[in-house]
């Protein structure tokens, strides 16, 4: 399967030639850009065919990527927002990674985003490709505002499609039926948006090589969000109050309410 070019393409267009930050692994791109006069540190994880970990050369979130993202995010200048550009097929699957402690590398990045947001940096995310599992947890899901391309190439899930088929031993048609009955198992971005996880969808003409109009639409939306910093500062749990969540996440909302009611009986 060929490595995705979307992350790099959108990173380059949105940072419009801003100088990439040095000292990061080649698979982690970061640059301080300006969007409508607002300072934004854009960050992306991209394939590095020469990566030193053999199982992390196709854009996967591995040891170097997790810790590299943390370095990039932790170094965000005062007053700057952060934009996570998300196109990650998942975690890297390797013995070296498990021995070194891949969970810590992803925790480092997650921690960086959370601390940045909690200390006043608006955190935005733009999903332009795959957003899978731990990779999405540590790069994107801690944003206060998440936009995504309205495109069939976007996938959100906890496992690759091939892995799901293997684990469940189900045929494509059966998986499609389950996805219709249980939206939580659907991988497409529109269904994920119905769960209250996405703030804005962008139809685009070319997701891998965005046109000027594609970029302008995204920049316009980011500008609005940056002008209202409260949006990028929202905690993940506030998504439970999104309009879509009232229905789609009614059970999670009920659990939260019941815990509150029963906490000090």
């Amino acid at each position, binding site marked *: 399967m060929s490595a995705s070019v979307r992350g790099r393409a959108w990173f380059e267009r949105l940072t419009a030639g801003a100088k990439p930050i040095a000292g990061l692994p080649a698979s982690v791109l970061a640059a301080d850009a300006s969007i409508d006069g607002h300072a934004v540190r854009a960050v992306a994880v991209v394939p590095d065919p020469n990566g*030193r970990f053999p199982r992390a050369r196709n854009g996967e979130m591995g*040891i170097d990527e997790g810790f590299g993202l943390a370095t990039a995010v932790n170094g965000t200048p005062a007053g700057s927002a952060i934009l996570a550009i998300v196109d990650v097929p998942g975690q890297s699957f390797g013995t070296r990674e498990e021995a070194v402690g891949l969970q810590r590398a*992803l925790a480092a990045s997650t921690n960086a985003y959370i601390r940045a947001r909690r200390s006043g940096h608006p955190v935005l995310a733009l999903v332009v490709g795959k957003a899978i599992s731990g990779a999405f947890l540590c790069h994107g899901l801690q944003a206060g505002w998440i936009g995504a391309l309205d495109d069939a190439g976007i996938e*959100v*899930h906890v496992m690759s499609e091939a892995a799901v088929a293997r684990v469940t031993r189900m045929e494509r048609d059966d998986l499609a039926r389950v996805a219709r009955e249980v939206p939580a198992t659907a991988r497409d971005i529109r269904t994920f948006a119905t769960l209250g996880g996405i703030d804005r969808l962008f139809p685009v003409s070319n997701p891998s090589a965005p046109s000027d109009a594609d970029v302008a639409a995204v920049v316009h939306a980011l500008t609005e969000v940056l002008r209202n910093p409260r949006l990028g500062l929202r905690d993940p749990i506030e998504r439970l109050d999104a309009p879509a969540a009232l229905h789609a996440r009614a059970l999670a909302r009920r659990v939260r309410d019941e815990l509150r009611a029963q906490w000090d009986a």
Partner: protein
Amino acid sequence: MSLLLAESFAERSARDRARALLDAQSFRELLDPFQRIASPYLEAQGVVPQSDDGTVVARGTIGGVRACVVATDGRFLGGSIGEIGGAKIAGALELARRDAERGTPTRLVLALDTGGIRLQEANLAILTVSEICDGIVALRELMPVVALIAGRVGVYGGLSLSTALCSQIIVSEGARVGLNGPDVVETESGIDEMDSSDRPLIWRVTGGQLRFRQGFATELVSDDVAVIRAAVERAFEEPRELGPLVPQPFPDPRLERDAFLRAMEIEP
């Protein structure tokens, strides 16, 4: 001299583990099985739901101080976290943070025994896990957040990422702490990368002893209720320093797999 027999913690159910960690007689379960807040998504996928969704939330005291234990049951769907289980953990973190802000802190213990996010509830569960991560970091600003990984499954996936954010991490020798389970690594990268049937190797690569040696845990415990109770209380009374989330030195990953492991003092 009396012979004290060690009582296994790992053999207990999630409910009984919570009971063991809280002071005697103080256990009170929230959203108990009889409230029947169970997953509505499983029957359509050929799975019978459990009345507590495999996650138990209990209030009580630890060392006489207000406390809450959230325990997952590794025997129900591998302890995997669905929408309800995830919401239980996230909600408990949120309330513990509120209590700490109000000056009436509630000690929170995450006794996680889980293979990760439940496949059958994928995207609803992943949203709750993002809340859990945030909740841990927020609570940690005010007081210790204790992860106890002492079950049969250990901790994997998004929940492993979450526990790595905790400020006190207690692991047992028998538990494993990794991101991707051995069967997943084998399936994705081949049996030469990882042989999931080689159980001793798996423990050498991801077991509690290794994690403590690496400095990824604040305490290593045996599978003994009394030892674990004491360790949990100590984690609140005398919290230990857990190193920052930066890479610890490791060998050149370009080394062949076996050479890499040997260089990490792990027998391949």
